[in-house]
């Protein structure tokens, strides 16, 4: 692990607190909490430069990561930011219509027998 500053070590953690990236906000916009395995994807056509310029670098990174449908957990792992921060940033992009949450057939309802059998088959063939 590289140490960038002789005054801090790994024990101190990041010098910039992670929620600085969200302007201190800890609740997602619209008071919505994204499920860990909610599937999200960048919405619509490629954005114009002026629109992208308004976004901070983390927002832009998230947009890139969401080019193809992906789960919130995978995005959070990819961008290596805390989940709470990722949720807030994603909620911004969702509110701006840049990212959509895809409907998930097996979301809240009990998983269908069919889906469970598919998981079972998948496990057996591992």
């Amino acid at each position: 692990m590289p140490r960038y500053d002789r005054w801090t070590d790994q024990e101190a953690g990041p010098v910039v607190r992670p929620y600085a990236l969200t302007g201190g906000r800890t609740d997602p916009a619209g008071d919505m909490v994204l499920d860990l395995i909610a599937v999200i994807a960048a919405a619509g056509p490629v954005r114009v430069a002026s629109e992208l310029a308004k976004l901070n670098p983390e927002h832009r990174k998230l947009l890139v990561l969401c080019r193809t449908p992906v789960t919130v957990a995978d995005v959070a792992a990819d961008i290596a930011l805390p989940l709470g921060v990722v949720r807030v940033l994603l909620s911004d992009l969702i509110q701006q219509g840049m990212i959509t949450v895809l409907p998930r057939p097996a979301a809240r309802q009990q998983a269908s027998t069919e889906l469970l059998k598919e998981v079972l088959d998948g496990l057996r063939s591992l």
Partner: protein
Amino acid sequence: MGSAPSEGEADGSLLTPVKIVVAGGFGVGKTTLVSAISEIRPLRTEESLTQVGIGVDDLTGVAGKTTTTVAMDFGRISMGARLVLYLFGTPGQDRFWFMWDDLSYGALGAVVLADTRRLSDCFPSVDYFERRQLPFIVAVNAFDGAPRYDTEDVRIALDLDPDVPALLCDARQRSSVKEVLITLVQHILAGPRDGQEAPPEPGAVGWSGPVGRPTFLLAGDPPDADLPNGNGNGDARDAARPAQEASRPAVDGS
């Protein structure tokens, strides 16, 4: 494998993630189990850091940070083109109970990993999933040198419902973990799913719904603040832990 087309499958590219929770006490082998069968990915969460820290600490306040960062791993198993199984291990320490609702939301079911040397460590997990009515099984991790118990003894010690499977496993062995997961999915398939009431969370298309605060509790919140089944749920944290343990038979006769 040969599943009939249904809603959501019209588009073959539609990503279908499913989730299984792996719970159990601290150091019981949850991460070992997850990494034995899946590509593991690190997930960082800092919920408690900021929520507790609002208005209290500033950028210079780095003291005490080690208690506020929660590193969590999850496993990912791709099954065919669209189905992906995620394995989420719960943080083992009591102070991270606030994350359990988040992890369990929308899960197919759970594996409670048990260590016979510290069987009481998994009582809270068993209680949690029973209360939440999330199907679960108990997998006893066969540590080297740990006393070997019949799964029937473990079942009695944990006061498991007769229909809850309990099996021995070796969390390091891929084949053993595979068997554990298969047992869980078979158990879910055998159980009553239709008409069973879903946990009372608002939810649609991946949102866990509008909430004043996130659905998880903070370490400093009073018990029962917003866990779904509020009947004494706050006892999940250390306060009432001894009471829970007392209510179950001791496993080693001590």
